[in-house]
């Protein structure tokens, strides 16, 4: 597989001609060529492999380390129509100090809509330990003219966003217009300036593991070292699963072994419990190794996850199981 993908003529800027030929042959032919290029995914093997991750027994020190590391990897997210400056400010306070326990680190970043970036910057202050990520490019659909999307990215960066989460053009990808997908990613990358770029593949709309792997490679070939690929927007029914996380981690591994360029990874959406987060970390450890077990190479896009991580850390500290309503879960009588 790696031999076949040793160099990527399909993705090289000079390969545009091949891509144009492929497009004329229709999407299925171009996908076939692309799959040959990046190698296929053994979907049964992936499912079986990730099922094993849930059986790893993490005890005591390893669990505590995992929970704290996971906290430091969280992109604490609020992406709702009802977001207000006040709500973003309290999110920022929570990001800086998730718990009154000083052993709990701040999270990696807050993730907000572009209009909320300047409010987040005011709440966090310049040079804060917590970075500001913003979903630009007509999130979550990406269905806006490229000029509009690029304008959104530049505005967010100007307001102080350290990281930009973009969505790929799924319509173009599924139609087999791969060079257009890549050109748009490259344009957004350039608009980011020094800000980190995260490319959302929206895996639930790509439908197969093969396409997830192919889209990962399309994105990675135009990314800079340290930029991210990300599973999903969190706005569709199916989000990050251990399966599609695994496919993307293996794509990152194969790409790194071939090119030496380390690409970072961010699963997002659907990761709500500390137990799930630890299973994702096991996947990272066993696929990419320790070099990816930090918040420069791996993130969790989540809103409720932080509450459960802090809750489990409190359990480890006190020895007593904790009620969720002590950790800002929705407070009903139960």
């Amino acid at each position, binding site marked *: 597989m790696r031999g076949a993908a040793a160099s990527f003529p399909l993705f090289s800027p000079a390969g545009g001609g091949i891509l144009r030929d492929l497009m004329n042959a229709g999407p299925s032919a171009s996908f076939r060529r692309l799959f040959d290029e990046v190698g296929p995914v053994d979907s049964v093997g992936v499912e079986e492999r990730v099922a094993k991750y849930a059986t790893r027994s993490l005890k005591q020190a390893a669990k505590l380390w995992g929970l704290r590391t996971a906290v430091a990897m969280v992109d604490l997210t609020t992406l709702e129509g009802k977001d207000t400056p006040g709500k973003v400010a309290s999110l920022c306070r929570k990001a800086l100090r998730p718990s009154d326990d000083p052993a709990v680190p701040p999270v990696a970043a807050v993730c907000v809509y572009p209009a909320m970036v300047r409010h987040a910057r005011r709440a966090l202050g310049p040079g804060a330990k917590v970075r500001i990520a913003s979903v630009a490019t007509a999130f979550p659909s990406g269905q806006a003219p490229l000029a509009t999307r690029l304008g959104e990215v530049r505005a967010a960066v100007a307001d102080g966003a350290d990281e930009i989460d973009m969505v790929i053009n799924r319509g173009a990808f599924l139609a087999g217009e791969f060079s257009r997908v890549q050109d748009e990613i490259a344009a957004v990358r350039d608009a980011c300036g020094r800000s980190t770029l995260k490319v959302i593949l929206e895996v639930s709309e790509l439908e197969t593991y093969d396409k997830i792997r192919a889209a990962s490679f399309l994105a990675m070939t135009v990314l800079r070292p340290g930029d991210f690929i990300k599973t999903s927007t969190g706005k569709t029914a199916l989000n990050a699963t251990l399966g599609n996380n695994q496919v993307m981690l293996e794509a990152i591994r194969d790409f790194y072994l071939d090119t030496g360029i380390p690409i970072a990874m961010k699963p997002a959406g659907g990761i709500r419990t500390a137990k799930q987060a630890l299973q994702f970390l096991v996947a990272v450890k066993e696929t990419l190794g320790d070099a990816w077990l930090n918040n420069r190479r791996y993130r969790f896009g989540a809103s409720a996850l932080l509450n459960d991580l802090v809750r489990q850390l409190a359990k480890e500290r006190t020895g*007593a*199981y*904790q009620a969720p309503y002590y950790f800002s879960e929705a407070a009903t*009588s*139960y």
Partner: protein
Amino acid sequence: MSRLPITKTPKVYVGGAFIRSESARVFPLRDAAGAFFAHIPQCTRKDLRNAIEAAAAAGPGWAKRTAYNRGQILYRLAEMLEARSAELAAALLVGVKATPRARAAAAREVAATIDRIIYYAGWADKYEQLLGSVNPVAAPYFNFTVTEPMGVVGVLAPATPALLGLASLLAPAIVSGNTVVALASESQPYPAILLGEMLATSDLPGGVVNLLTGFRRELVPTFATHTHLRALSGVATAGERRALRLGAAESVKRTRLRPAEDRIDWYAADAQSLAAVGDTLEYKTTWHPIGA
């Protein structure tokens, strides 16, 4: 034609499903002659944690049911027991020498259990009228007190009577909209296994009653310290009561514990009361301006 024996695997009723312990541990139950009867799940503190999650998830929906509906469901639970009363009586005789006297005692316990559930079913739409109140105040306010369920209640059933004791503790808790995680009798766990099967067919939503079997010494400390349990109700030894009260003080939960050393008459007239319903209620008093 000879048949293969079809023996039942006893499983505990948690979250509306029949499960084994997450630890996969079991302990053997023996009949009066000392022969093997069945393996009973030896539930762990993680099982208790999971059961409390299930109880908490079921809670708001159960509390939102109308009082009338909760009464109807408890009544149906009693119907389910009535139809399988012979089986329940046999379950109470596991490990007991089946003398005529023991048989009569088991039948009496089953009948008393059914009657107790009917008793609390009747209270469902009546306790609020008696426990809530309109309070006289010397100011232009309408002042009234209403009851609310506390949340997840931990129940520690007595060793005997295994079935009547368990039912007497969980019925008054769930009638008001609480949910229960109960630890069954350690020496006689089999009736609780059967009770779970009847709960499953009684229209009671899954998770409202969760029954665990296992060893008290392994589970009592977690009952004491788990902060999601709002109240503890049951029978405990002196050592257990101390551990439970210390843990409850730390996590601010209510305890209604009766000494295991006392001879409690579970058949007595005062073994069932409105006060038992009140034991797992919170009282909310509201000041409402008159004429506003």
